[in-house]
């Protein structure tokens, strides 16, 4: 059923046996690279001609079906980075490559879940209308669209809300709709920009588990941007730690935790605590002990 919509993706190999997904080589060796970021930089020039460097130089690789967390202090330029990866913003140096091709404009096969669901879901469309929109853009026939919309909404645990409007739902439910829309699009790469920053803690836990579940179910590669260190460690197979703006990669860490993750067990795992302490140290350090070559 759900796999039918993925026929448009370039290739859909069966889920390779990765064992503990966390113990993947950090440079993505041995796994096909889905996203490759090479010395990407972004400098804004304001009206007075003053250059403002948001991203200095960032390089990292994301392997197939990997979930990479990108964590950094507030204002580090994370959203700028994500917009560059999505092709919504052109980098001023370097480039990002998606499945081998340089990212320009918005390439097919990349879906984005934005932080502000209340702004990214269109309030004049019903929930089903919102989820169906990318399918319409793709030219999926109507009958097929209905099927995919229903299964996508079911996958995020929201069957039967299709006829309602997004603003009639709670914040957590709205973000689920945004995720369902991304799933319906059938992407190879899902970019998430602080997706759970504006929901309560309980809902946040549920949504983190939802992302992990649909990633497995749909076989997607995910880049998950967050400023929440615990969240980055919890969902990530790997963590790319960014410095303050103008940001560079401070460290690229594998997350060696058991899968599937569990909110209770994982978060009380000593390795989890050790790792989050390490990431916290890296994020709060002024970048003095940052080793740019480490990226």
């Amino acid at each position: 059923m759900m796999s039918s919509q993925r026929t448009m993706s370039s290739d859909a190999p069966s889920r390779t046996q990765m064992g503990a997904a966390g113990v993947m080589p950090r440079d993505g060796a041995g796994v096909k690279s889905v996203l490759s970021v090479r010395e990407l930089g972004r400098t804004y020039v304001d009206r007075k001609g003053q250059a403002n460097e948001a991203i200095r130089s960032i390089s990292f690789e994301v392997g197939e079906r990997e979930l990479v967390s990108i964590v950094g202090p507030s204002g580090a330029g994370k959203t700028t980075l994500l917009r560059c990866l999505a092709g919504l913003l052109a980098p001023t140096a370097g480039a990002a490559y998606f499945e081998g091709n340089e990212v320009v404009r918005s390439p097919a096969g990349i879906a984005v879940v934005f932080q502000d669901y209340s702004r990214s879901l269109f309030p004049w469309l019903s929930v089903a209308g919102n989820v169906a929109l990318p399918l319409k853009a793709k030219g999926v026939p109507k009958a097929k669209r209905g099927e995919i919309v229903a299964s996508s909404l079911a996958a995020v645990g929201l069957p039967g809300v299709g006829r309602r409007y997004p603003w009639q739902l709670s914040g957590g439910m709205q973000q689920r709709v945004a995720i369902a829309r991304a799933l319906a699009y059938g992407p190879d790469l899902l970019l998430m920009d602080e997706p759970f920053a504006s929901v309560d803690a309980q809902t946040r836990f549920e949504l983190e588990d939802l992302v992990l579940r649909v990633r497995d179910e749909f076989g997607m590669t995910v880049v998950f941007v967050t400023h929440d260190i615990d969240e980055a460690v919890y969902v990530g197979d790997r963590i790319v730690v960014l410095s303050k703006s103008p940001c560079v990669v401070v460290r690229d860490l594998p997350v060696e935790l058991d899968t599937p993750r569990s909110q209770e067990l994982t978060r009380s795992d000593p390795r989890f605590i050790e790792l989050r302490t390490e990431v916290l140290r890296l994020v709060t350090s002024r970048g003095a002990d940052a080793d740019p070559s480490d990226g």
Partner: protein
Amino acid sequence: MKRTLRLTGRGLLYGAIPGALLLVWWFGPSPKALYFPSLKAVVDAFKTEWLGNGAHQLRIDLVPSLEHVLIGYAIAVALGIVLGLLLAVVSVLYDASLPLITFFRGLPSPALIPALLLIFGLGGNFKIAIIAFGSLWPVLLNAYDGFRSIDGVQLDTARSYRLSRRQRLFVVMLPAASPQIVAGARTALQVAVLLMVASEFLASTQGIGYALNVAQVNFDTPGLWSGMLLLGVVGIALNLLFLLVERGLMGWYIGMRSREVNG
């Protein structure tokens, strides 16, 4: 039961002042009062002048008036949206045309009547032109504002899901700007009705404004007042029609707003 009582109470409250005024108007003025005829005289005049002879006069005057106002208004709304979009998308165009826009929107539209009269002549086209011209500005400026203030996240979403140009325009931009377009269109409707009357008043051989003018010249005060009564009815009807269309198109916005207000 309680609800019915409350509604009746509210109805009484709304009806009290107009009702009292109508009573005073009906019984107050002496039947011979020349400048201020009683409501009874006005209603009689309305019946004979407008509804008499199979509503002959109503058809002669009201139909062209409505035709002009609706066509002129429709042109203004359509043109206002298209130009507003164009100016919002091509910012150079906006900068270049700002002085012109500022001039024309500041110019009282009735002042253009003589000039447009020379260009279009005395026919219906002149009235349509003046109505369209005058009611264009509120729509254009609001549409411009609406298109300019579309949320960047909405545009990013449209782009990242690779919506076609057409889809971006009709599924995202137009609905996103629609609350402001509708606000502009509401103001424009008042302007359109005003210009309908003014154009008929100054240069016409038919229409409600013309009938008012004739009644005034002939000291037919009941006829004059009956014309005003008719204009009031037309104004209310047009506003109701507007509300109806707004409800149909903007149900999502009304629902969303009421939800925000009520928490």
